[in-house]
């Protein structure tokens, strides 16, 4: 994508509450300045084939099987499990296909010898090569793969499940894995825009200081990756934003913090304001309100986060003063925090830092910014403080 900054719009007024659809976001905002283009990760199959001397026939077989696997009727994962009272149907046994060197199973070494590429077939149940070939014929009708001289490498993976909100997705939704290029991973909390000056024209990503600014160690312009580095995000290829503003954490023994927050300046076409969640076997999206509401005792709240995904709980404390461990960075005192306890579930775990917390009702009004946890408790900054500190409004 091009990274030349766009000229700001002539008008800097706030948009109406009902913001335009995502497709027009990039027309409203200026892109971050950059001295290099944002490299989009690509898979160069041609280069792979050349490097590993994959013959055309093998490549064709892989494509044929891939097409059959991908074109199977969609199934609801939960439903499939609920009906899982007998052996799986053969069509469910084959979950993937690839090409790689035969190295684990000498049965799969073909005429080209060890190390030469063969077809990798990923299966849910342990089986022999012959059983795998039979399953391919039964499920997909591909008889060419069943020939005795056609070597395949059977790889037993079990069922392959999506790994929470840790995958790469463009545009990147809220509730998904992000992080400064030197951290592990946290959560893209929400989108926002500056309240004044040039920042009115910036589309910003809201999360924690310790997610976007590496606990005070980051610098303006540092790359923010989606997914975060712990989830395979590559710098700079997976960059969706650059570090823009943050409130430093005060680690002094007598210090008092109120917020752990930061903003990244996003490329408008690489992010989206909707929140991700898992519905049945696939991803779905929802929006939240933009007007903050103060937390209250027993208020039902929810969040969408990188690790525990969509969860809900209740506010049990609206004015907590707590001492929080930041690992090697030190320990910091926080005042005026919100505490949440999950409703018969863990409300948050490591990786959920930066999630926006909102009222668990149809309005989904912003309440807090998740940043810490202990035992069954989750701690969050009050969202009004976060917005004031960073001088932003949510863009939902």
């Amino acid at each position: 994508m091009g990274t030349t900054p766009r000229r700001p719009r002539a008008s800097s007024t706030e948009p109406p509450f009902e913001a335009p659809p995502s497709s027009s976001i990039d027309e409203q905002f200026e892109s971050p300045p950059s001295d290099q283009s944002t490299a989009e990760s690509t898979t160069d199959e041609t280069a792979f084939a050349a490097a590993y001397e994959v013959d055309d026939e093998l490549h064709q077989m892989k494509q044929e099987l891939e097409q059959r696997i991908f074109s199977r009727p969609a199934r609801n994962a939960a439903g499939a499990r609920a009906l899982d009272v007998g052996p799986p149907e053969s069509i469910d046994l084959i979950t993937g296909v690839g090409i790689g060197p035969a190295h684990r199973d000498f049965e799969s070494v073909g005429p080209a010898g060890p190390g030469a590429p063969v077809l990798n077939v990923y299966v849910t149940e342990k089986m022999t090569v012959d059983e795998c070939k039979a399953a391919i014929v039964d499920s997909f009708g591909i008889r060419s793969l069943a020939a005795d001289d056609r070597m395949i490498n059977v790889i037993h993976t079990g069922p392959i499940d999506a790994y929470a909100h840790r995958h790469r997705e463009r545009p990147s939704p809220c509730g998904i894995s992000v992080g400064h290029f030197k951290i592990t991973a946290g959560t893209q909390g929400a989108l926002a825009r500056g309240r004044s000056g040039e920042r009115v024209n910036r589309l910003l990503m809201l999360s924690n200081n310790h997610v976007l600014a590496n606990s005070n160690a980051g610098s303006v312009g540092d790359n923010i990756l989606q997914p975060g580095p712990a989830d395979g995000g590559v710098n700079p290829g997976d960059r969706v934003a650059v570090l823009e503003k943050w409130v430093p954490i005060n680690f002094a023994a007598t210090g008092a913090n109120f917020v752990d927050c930061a903003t990244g300046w996003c490329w408008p076409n690489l992010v989206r304001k909707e929140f991700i969640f898992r519905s049945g076997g696939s991803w779905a999206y929802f929006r939240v309100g933009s007007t903050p509401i103060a937390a209250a005792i027993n208020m039902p709240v929810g969040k969408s986060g990188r690790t525990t995904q969509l969860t809900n709980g209740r506010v049990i404390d609206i004015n907590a003063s707590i001492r929080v461990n930041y690992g090697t960075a030190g320990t910091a005192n926080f005042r005026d925090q919100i505490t949440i306890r999950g409703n018969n579930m863990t409300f948050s775990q490591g990786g959920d830092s930066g999630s926006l917390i909102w009222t668990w009702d149809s309005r989904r009004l912003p309440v807090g910014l998740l940043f810490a946890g202990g035992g069954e408790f989750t701690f969050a900054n009050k969202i009004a403080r976060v917005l004031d500190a960073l001088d932003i409004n949510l863009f939902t």
Partner: protein
Amino acid sequence: MATKTPFPESGPVAYNPQETITRERSEAEAALRHIPGVRGVGEGQDAIGNPAWIVYVTHDAVAHNLPRKVAGRTVVPEVSGEIDILPA
């Protein structure tokens, strides 16, 4: 001629709001926060809905050593263990 910075209005920003702390709250924090194993003090409700001090402690044993009442409110211990930030 001055060169325009590529990231105007960016960088670290201080946030030090004025906070009003009630006398009762000060009294509760003074009485509770320095007890070994206490990691935090907050404001919630007890089992029957009355305003209470929520005290976050590292272990059950710490909970047993807390006073039952401070500044006119019940003390409700909650075992949080250590409180950590939540990156992956």
